Every structure is written in C-alpha cells, then in structure tokens.
C-alpha cells in the first residue's frame, strides 16, 4: 500500500513536471522555427521599403507599408481605448468603491466581453462601416481594434487599481479632495505601472490581431497618409504572402513574421517588467 502511493506520487510528479517543461519547449520551438525560417530573407530592405512593381512575383521591395499601417492602427486604437477604458476603470474603483455588488457585476460582464472573438468584432466593424457608407480604411480599422482592446485596458487597469488600499482613498477624501481629484491625481498615480501594463497588453493585442482588420482596414501597397485611406497590416501581410505559390514571396512572409514576433516579444517583456515594478514599489 505504502509503496503504491509513493509510485503513484512519482508518476504524477513526473507527468506534471513534464507537462510544464514541455510548454517552455513548445514556446522555444515556435520562436526558433520562426527565427530560423525568417532570418535568411530578413534584410534591411524589408523594413525600409514598400512593395515595388512585381513584388508579389518575387520582385523588389519590403513590408514598410504594413509595418506603418499596423503601428498606425495599433497607436490610434490604443489611444481611443485609453480614452474610454481609463476613466471607466477609475470610475469602478473610485465612485463605485462602496458598492461591491455593482463592482462585481461589472467585472463579471467585462470578463465575459473579453471572450468575444475578434472575427465578431470584425463583422461588427464591417456593418458599422456599411452603415456610415465608408470604405475599408484606416479609421474603420482603428475603431474596430479599439472596441476589441478596450475591455483589456479596463480589466487589466482595474485589476491593479482594486489592490490599492481603501485607506488611501479615505485619506484623500478626508483632506477635502473631490472624487475626480482622487481618481485622476491619486488613484491614477498609484496604479500608473498597472496602467502602462494595460496599455502595452492592449497595444500588443491590437498589433497582432488580423481577423478584425481583415474586413475593415483593407490592404494596400502604399503607406496610408489619411484616415480614410485603406491600410495594410503586418499580420495580413504575412497571411497573404504565405498563400502565394512563389517561394520568394513566401520567404518574405517568414521574414515579416520575424519582425512581428520581435515587436510582440518586446511588448510582452516590457509589460511584465512594469508589472514587476508595481509589485515592488507601491503601497500595500
């Protein structure tokens, strides 16, 4: 009996350890494959040139249009998401601080909202676009992505704000500040690193998402200059070029994937770093 339970213990300890380490292995595997495949064709031209004539038959050029388009959309969308998400999160944690039930219900709804897939946002963005008589454009892409990432901003920022001790809130009120002052001058400052984490996460999600911009942002070989022009995005550039039968074009998709992966790696590691700063330096 005793031996059996020790054997069982060891088997499961091994299995669960194996599962955990295999996750690290899978991540390493994915990243190594992407980098090995992409580095051959990664050149400075990829980053500084737009597609020239014959690009899609293996001609000269790069994916600068898609890089700029993606950054434009991600920055614009993050900006809108901050405008909507930041005050909403502050409201939950300042004005509603006495109403735990309402707070919990809102958090519950926001979590459910987080689960809506990006293709649904894309379809919704598309109906909005038709409704307003617009074509696929930068602004349509920005709005769609903004809707997609706002719940992320709210929930991530809210998570940090909710750990701020009640005493701080009470102290500011006791000193005679209004709720708005408490929200923007005290709570915002206290939760600032959480805010940065939220923004970075949202930005990363916005730059990597393809299904929602497929309908709304369109695709073009030019760098978009105005809000009503279509814009290429990096994930879609990868997706379209991967579908090409010509090997050179596929090679470029691999290179573009390296660029996207590097951007995402930088964003997630920075976000992690900021959330660590938060847990070290703030009031508990």
């Amino acid at each position, binding site marked *: 009996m005793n031996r059996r339970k020790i054997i069982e213990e060891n088997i499961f300890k091994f299995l669960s350890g194996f599962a955990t380490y295999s996750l690290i292995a899978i991540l390493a595997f994915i990243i190594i494959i*992407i980098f090995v495949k992409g580095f051959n064709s990664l050149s400075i031209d990829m980053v500084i040139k737009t597609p020239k004539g014959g690009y899609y038959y293996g001609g000269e050029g790069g994916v600068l249009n898609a890089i700029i388009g993606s950054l434009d959309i991600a920055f614009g969308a993050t900006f809108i998401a901050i405008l909507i998400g930041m005050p909403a999160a502050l409201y939950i944690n300042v004005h509603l601080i006495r109403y735990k039930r309402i707070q919990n219900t809102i958090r519950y709804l926001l979590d459910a909202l987080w689960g809506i897939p990006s293709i649904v946002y894309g379809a919704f963005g598309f109906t909005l676009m038709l409704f307003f008589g617009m074509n696929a454009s930068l602004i349509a892409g920005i709005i769609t992505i903004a809707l997609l990432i706002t719940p992320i901003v709210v929930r991530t920022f809210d998570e940090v704000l909710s750990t701020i001790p009640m005493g701080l809130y009470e102290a500011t009120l006791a000193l005679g500040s209004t709720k708005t002052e408490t929200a923007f001058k005290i709570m915002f400052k206290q939760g600032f690193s959480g805010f940065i984490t939220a923004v970075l996460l949202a930005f990363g999600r916005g730059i990597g998402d393809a*299904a929602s911009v497929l309908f709304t942002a369109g695709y073009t070989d030019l760098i978009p200059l105005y809000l009503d022009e279509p814009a290429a995005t990096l994930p879609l550039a990868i997706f379209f070029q991967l579908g090409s039968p010509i090997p050179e074009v596929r090679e470029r998709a691999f290179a573009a994937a390296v660029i996207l992966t590097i951007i995402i790696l930088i964003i997630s590691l920075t976000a992690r770093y900021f959330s660590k700063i938060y847990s070290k330096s703030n009031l508990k």
Partner: protein
Amino acid sequence: MFDRITETWMVTALVTILLLPLIIGIALYLKAMPLFEIQNLPHLIGSSEWLPTDGKFGFWPFINSSMYVTVLSFIFSAPVCLLAGIYLTQFASKNLVRIMHPVMDILAGLPSVIYGMWGILIIVPFVGNVLAPFFNINSSGYTMLAGGIVLAVMCIPYMLNMLVEIFNTVPIGLKEASLSMGATFWQAVKHVVIRKSYPGIISAYGLGLAKAFGETLAVMMVVGNRVQITHNPFKAGYPLPALIANNYGEMLSIPMYDSALMFAALLLLVIILIINLVFRYFIYKTKTR
C-alpha cells in the same frame, strides 16, 4: 463644473463598454434579418446544403467542423493544462514559476498568424507525412487534426492562467491537514486540491472551449477549408470563423451572402457569450465562497 464633466465622461465610457455586446448583437441581427425571412432558424442551423448562389444556406457543416476542431483541441490541451497547473502551484520551485510567467505571457501574446505559420511549417507536414502514413491514410496534412493541434497550443496559456489562479485560492490549511494525516503530496492534490477547485476547473475548461471556438486565422490557415461533414480527423474541415473570414470579398456580390455571413458572426457571438457568462458565473461563485 470640472467634476461634472469628468464624471459624465467616466459614466459614458463605462456604459458604452457594458452595452457593447448588446449593440454588436443587435447590429448583426439586423444585418442577418433578410436571411430569417427566407429560412427559419432550425433549418439554417440544421441543414447541410451550402449553395450560396442558389440561395441555400445550411450552416451545419460549419458548426460541425467548429465543434469537431474545438473538441480535438480540448482533448490535447485539457490534460496538459491540468497537470501543468498542478505542478506550478504545488510542486514547482520559485525559479521555475518565475520563468513560467513570461513564457505564458508570450505564448498568450503571440498573434494567431504566427501560430498559423508555425502550423503550416511544422504541424501540417507532420500530420501529412508522419501521422497519416502511420495510420495508412492519404492526407495532405491540411486537416482538422492539424487545426486541433494548433488550437490546443493557442488555448493552453489561456486555460493554464485561469487554472493557476483557481488552484491558488485553495486554502493551504486544507492541504496541510491532509498531509499531516500521512497523505503524499499527490494524494493531497488529488483528494483536496482538485476536489476543492472542481467547479473552477470545469469553468476554466469551458472558457477555453469558448476561446477555441472563436479562434479564426490560425485555424483557417491549417484546417483545409472544405465544405463537408466528416468525422475523420484526417479530412479537411471548415469552421464558422473561417467561413466569415474567407468570404468577405465575395459577400456583396451574391444576394443574401452578406446576411448569411453576418448570421454566422451572430451565431458565434451568441454561443460564445452564453458559454462565457455561464462559466464566469461559476468562477465568481468559487472565488467569493
């Protein structure tokens, strides 16, 4: 005065976000309306005739593929997540936990197109050249099995994150009590930790399923996209999200096609929102208990 403005701003922002799913639902419903006029709902979902040019829209092949791929991915990811979650919360050293945090962050943050490309480069050839010949089946590799594997990898960080959170809420005293009675670590895990967090585990699994159900691009790139009803994992499928994403180009040129695609989006929204609301509710119940 300033107070009033900012407060209005805050409330408007919050209400907008909370109403968003309702607005999306209504907009998609209005767009899908013309379809309901020619066919009733049970027929739309249950029929498997898909001939858009003849005005015949049966969504069953797509729903079927979606469920099939989702269940396949679940079979791969569920045990891995459970075991890894247990290891991370019960057995792992501090150092490993510290390494795993960024690993999970990055896995969760990688865009689906990257997973899709990895799937095309590795999983598709693996399924086509290794697994299929092993079972004596001829297959291109662009199959539901490949879709399931790629999806499983994508859903693991999502489910694992929730599982770790849930396991961490189990009071340590309970575990210590069972250890002091002479149980091994694994016995304590099996009889106390898992039993105590049972509703949470089910919820995390449910939310993982919902996430897999709505995933678009990565699946679309490896799943083969052929309209057929099959129960063979070595055949191509055509999940709902892929249907929407693949046909947005033609949808305005064929009558009713846009309504049909918006109906597909509405279907996705409703299914996923319901799953999310139900299982999130369970999680809240376990957290507050």
